[in-house]
């Protein structure tokens, strides 16, 4: 941040956000200059096209509300990452494309134009990612930003929720080219660990991917799919799930069926929001930005 300490900024922001920080990763980043610090925003599970007034009576407005909230952030992120389920599933390929187009148009109002995407199963599992690729390009890829390596994985184009042998081989080959001392951020839709396989909250071969990440000292995983904030460690690797921008889901295995949490008229938009992730010296700092209470 410029002119004042980021921690002070978080206190001053008054956005009702919750900071989850400290020691989450990146212990090897001490040598990086303070000027390399940056933050990005994670938005997830927007489910454009969803209909269900009991769950979200503002299904047409929630994404636009989130776009406005991101635009109102006092300091804009370096980039925005959408971690899947951009659209709600449809069995009609033409309707899927219509929803993807509408989603693209709406997020076109974001002030930040550096936006990256990965699909969720609602976007890609019925056509192996064909429509998604037409709009947003490859479903798995890598990039680097200010000293941090990023890997975006696709664990949804295979409808069984697997990365597959080819992608695992690609991941292994790519990781082999990286300096293990450099921080690594992994993005996926489904959790890479077995959070709740009976609710499809897992990746069939996710353990193989996590094993490939283990040699990296500073690595963190960000994902969506479960429509709630959740933090989990596999060894030294933290996994952070994001809230949805359409409807929340119950806590893992907290009830017999995985059904959306009903809309609470007394607390509209409760459980919905987005996240900012800042690299801050040795720390990776997460701040949740609930939509509830925003104008």
């Amino acid at each position, binding site marked *: 941040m410029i002119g004042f300490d980021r921690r002070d900024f978080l206190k001053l922001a008054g956005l009702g956000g919750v900071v989850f920080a400290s020691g989450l990763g990146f212990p090897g980043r001490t040598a990086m200059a303070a000027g390399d610090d940056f933050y990005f925003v994670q938005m997830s599970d927007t489910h454009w096209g969803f209909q269900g007034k009991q769950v979200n009576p503002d299904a047409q407005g929630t994404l636009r509300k989130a776009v406005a909230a991101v635009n109102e952030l006092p300091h804009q992120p370096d980039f925005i990452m959408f971690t899947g389920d951009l659209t709600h*599933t*449809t069995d009609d390929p033409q309707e899927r494309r219509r929803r993807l187009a509408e989603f693209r148009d709406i997020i076109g109002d974001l002030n930040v134009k550096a936006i990256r995407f990965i699909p969720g199963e609602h976007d890609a*599992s019925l056509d192996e990612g064909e429509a998604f690729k037409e709009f947003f390009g490859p479903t798995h890829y890598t990039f680097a930003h200010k000293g941090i390596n990023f890997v975006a994985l696709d664990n949804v184009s295979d409808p*069984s929720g697997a990365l597959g042998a080819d992608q695992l081989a690609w991941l292994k080959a790519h990781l082999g080219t990286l300096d293990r001392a450099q921080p690594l951020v992994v993005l996926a839709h489904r959790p890479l660990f077995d959070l709740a396989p009976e609710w499809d909250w897992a990746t069939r071969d996710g353990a193989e991917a996590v094993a490939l990440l283990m040699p990296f000292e500073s690595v963190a995983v960000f994902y969506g799919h479960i429509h709630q904030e959740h933090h989990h460690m596999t060894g030294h690797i933290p996994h952070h799930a994001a809230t949805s921008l359409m409807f929340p889901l119950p806590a893992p295995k907290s009830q017999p069926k995985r059904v959306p949490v009903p809309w609470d008229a007394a607390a509209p938009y409760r459980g919905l929001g987005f996240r900012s992730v800042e690299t801050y010296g040795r720390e990776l700092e997460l701040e949740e930005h609930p939509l509830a209470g925003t104008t």
Partner: protein
Amino acid sequence: MIAMQWKICAAAFAAAVLGGGVLAAALEPRERVVRVTARRFEYDPPRVALKRGEPVVLELTSRDRRHGFKLPELGIHGEALPGEVLAIHLRPEVAGTFDFACDVFCGSGHDDMEGEIVVTE
């Protein structure tokens, strides 16, 4: 708790891919055959009734596309594919109700694609 003896017989599975005639040769004697057909977004039948101790083979297939068949309580996991038969051999040893569901995302009704095995005395 392991409530049933389950085995997805490798020989039977291989035979299943080859066709029903070969499959029949691979079956254990006295196994009752229960056919379960998956299609979006249901299993037919959705409720499978078994007797405790009865040897059974579930023959799972799909009418339209790839579907899953997961019974996590007992560690059972298979897939139903059009034109193929997955044979799941089991001998229930405990009475009870055991839920199964599709874990291969198959469309708008995927979350509701489920069924149950009911074992009685």
